[in-house]
């Protein structure tokens, strides 16, 4: 008998289940070893160790940096408050993106709500646990990145850094409640299927919203900018929101060690979560019922499908099939778009300055290779029915090459205008981009071909968790080729370093290649 046993069906018991599922979802189920029938779940030990090493390394880096800096002032300047608030706003937008993703999963993808709702546990308790689970996972994710800075402050004897943890938890509660309400409202107003699509797009956009809006704003006319700024400032001033005591700067005050502000943020988050669960759990149940009872949309068959001529040849049908599957997978597309969106800062900077074309070439090289890496993973590893392909009389080698082609062609198509534009500006720039991006794409394809393991599309975002080495090699390859591009255009003699990195990635992948037999 266990020393401590939770009452079955209780809040804590259900929360432990939720917490366990959070970890199981971090990796694919796999056999413990070749002869074993037992399955291991969640993130593999190698992945956990790597995360621990990275986390400790981040602590060390933060400590090194912060030990040379003066301690935070207990009464910061107004400018510091504004800067800190801006950073917190950015963090909050990323949190909202993460919370939206998790609420979609909680509502539509976990698939255990039917079981839970058919049990005698109250729906209120189920909703409480689901929302708490989202809050905990958001806190855990962001604490991983932010805790090194906070902990380093604490190690340096600056106890007021603890307030940042209160802000983190308070913000996580607030965004989780907002994300859940947003998802449920979408279900109510636009239906389950569209919610799935729209919520993923919102999730992708919210992560980059602040950056994108700031960049768009910087591209409007100066006079419009000034009008908007002065209008906003006068509004804030009229409502006394620009004073240091304004509630707008409450989170920033908490980060600078004001315990009352920290507690206020935390308690506000707690109250919002409580209100959400207290008054919207019926709404939640209806949302789940709608999700579960979504009827198959019967589309009257047109003659178009019957009349359309079939494509011929193994290569072409594989290309078409892969592209159809990608274009119809909204979640996947939104995640790929997100990957691209996070790369946008680079492009805004280089294009705005106009002269940093070598940076454009390196950035585009990196982007192209990363995109191919993602597409190759989706097309090769996340094949829906590998058995069908193995049953076919086509050799697997041919099928895999066709799949690689399906991943590489769209990226080449996307890169070609940039190559042509650069050739027009300076032929050497265009050639350099063509050479480095194609080289990197070829290497990335081979690395994935040799190291890919079967997985499913919904693991796309977490594909690195079970495959740490391939992800590291892919990253090394992308960075190396971007480095080659930059070096060729600036300091040519250092290009060998990039070439060595790319070669190393390829050689290691070759030695670690998976035996397909």
């Amino acid at each position, binding site marked *: 008998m266990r020393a401590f046993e939770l009452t079955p069906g209780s809040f804590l018991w259900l929360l432990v289940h939720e917490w366990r599922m959070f970890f199981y979802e971090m990796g694919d189920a796999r056999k413990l070893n070749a*002869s*074993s*029938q037992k399955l291991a779940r969640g993130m593999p030990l190698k992945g956990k160790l790597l995360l621990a090493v990275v986390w400790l390394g981040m602590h060390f880096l933060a400590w090194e940096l912060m030990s040379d800096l003066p301690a935070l002032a207990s009464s910061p300047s107004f400018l510091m408050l504004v800067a800190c608030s801006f950073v917190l706003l950015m963090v909050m937008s990323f949190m909202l993106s993460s919370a939206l993703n998790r609420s979609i999963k909680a509502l539509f993808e976990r698939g255990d709500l039917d079981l839970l709702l058919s049990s005698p546990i109250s729906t209120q308790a189920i909703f409480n646990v689901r929302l708490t689970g989202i809050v905990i996972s958001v806190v855990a994710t962001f604490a991983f990145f932010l805790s090194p800075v906070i902990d380093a402050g604490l190690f340096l004897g600056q106890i007021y850094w603890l307030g940042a943890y209160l802000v983190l938890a308070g913000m996580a509660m607030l965004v989780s409640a907002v994300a859940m309400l947003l998802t449920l409202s979408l279900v109510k107003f636009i239906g389950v299927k569209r919610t799935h699509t729209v919520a993923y797009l919102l999730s992708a956009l919210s992560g980059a919203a602040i950056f994108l809006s700031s960049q768009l704003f910087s591209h409007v006319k100066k006079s419009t900018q000034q009008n908007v700024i002065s209008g906003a400032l006068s509004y804030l001033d009229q409502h006394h929101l620009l004073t240091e005591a304004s509630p707008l700067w409450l989170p920033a005050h908490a980060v600078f060690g004001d315990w009352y502000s920290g507690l206020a943020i935390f308690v506000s988050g707690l109250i919002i979560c409580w209100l959400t669960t207290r008054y919207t759990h019926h709404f939640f149940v209806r949302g789940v019922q709608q999700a579960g009872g979504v009827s*198959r*949309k*019967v*589309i*009257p*068959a*047109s003659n*178009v*499908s*019957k009349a*359309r*001529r*079939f*494509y*011929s*040849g*193994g290569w*072409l*049908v*594989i290309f*078409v*099939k892969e592209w*159809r*599957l990608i274009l*119809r*997978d909204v979640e996947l597309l939104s995640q790929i778009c997100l990957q691209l969106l996070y790369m946008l800062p680079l492009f805004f900077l280089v294009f705005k300055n106009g002269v940093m074309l070598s940076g454009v070439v390196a950035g585009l090289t990196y982007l192209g290779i990363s995109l191919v890496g993602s597409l190759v993973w989706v097309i090769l590893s996340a094949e*829906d*029915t590998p*058995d*069908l*392909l*193995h*049953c*076919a*009389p*086509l*050799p697997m080698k041919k*099928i895999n090459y066709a799949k690689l082609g399906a991943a590489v062609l769209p990226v080449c198509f996307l890169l070609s205008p940039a190559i042509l534009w650069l050739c027009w500006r300076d032929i050497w720039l265009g050639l350099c981009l063509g050479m480095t991006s194609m080289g990197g794409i070829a290497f990335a394809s081979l690395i994935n071909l040799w190291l890919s393991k079967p997985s499913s599309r919904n693991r796309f975002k977490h594909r690195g968790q079970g495959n740490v080495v391939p992800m590291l090699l892919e990253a090394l390859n992308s960075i190396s080729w971007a480095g080659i591009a930059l070096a060729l255009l600036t300091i040519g003699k250092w290009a060998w370093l990039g070439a060595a990195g790319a070669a190393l990635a390829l050689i290691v992948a070759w030695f670690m290649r998976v035996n397909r*037999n």
Partner: protein
Amino acid sequence: MSEVALALQDLTKIFGRPAVDHLNLSVKKGELYALLGPNGAGKTTTLRMVAGLLLPDSGTIQVLGHDLLRDPAAAKQQLAYLPDDPMLYNKLKPFEYLEFVAGLWGIKPSFAQTKAAELLEWLDLSKHADELTEGFSRGMKQKLALAGALIHQPELIILDEPLTGLDAAAARQVKDLLLAHVAQGGTVILTTHILEVAERMAQRIGIIQHGKLIAEGSLDELRHLADKTDSGAEQGAQVATLEQVFLQLTEPA
């Protein structure tokens, strides 16, 4: 030309313990053969090796005279495999799926298009031609997978639990199709837990246990075999149904 559709010799596959243990099996062309056995007996492993999805540890597999390991393309060209979990793409529409399968088997597009329309019409899926398969019921998915298995007009069809999840009308359709295929000279090998199906449809039945073929023959031959091995039964009491034969032959010693 070989008269044997499938020949397995000393086929072995070990997953910690032998899943298939030196299995010898021969199925003639134009035969409907049912492979029966308790759960975990090695039926699916055997079929997956025949379909080229698993590599045997030892032994040979001849499909319509072609060695599967030496010449997989020729062996697979005339073979269709339909597992109990349909091999479908959720985000494809029925015609797109059939177009893809036909392309994999190198079927001429004009022929594949006509054949796809015929199959979907016959399986009552034409009216769902513009829907994604992710919204299909289990039975509809099974029927679409069957259409995929038939689009390249295979000579040998291997089916693992083909009637799972089908309603009575769809099950009848599938059974009729398999019998028609055999009547036209084709070969069908199927596994099923519905012993009545094997009893009514199969010309020969093989019973597999612990990866070994423990009995094989027509229903009458199996009855006779069961009578002989039934030492504990009352004298004169004959084993009547396939279910009784199956239970008697597979019961623990």
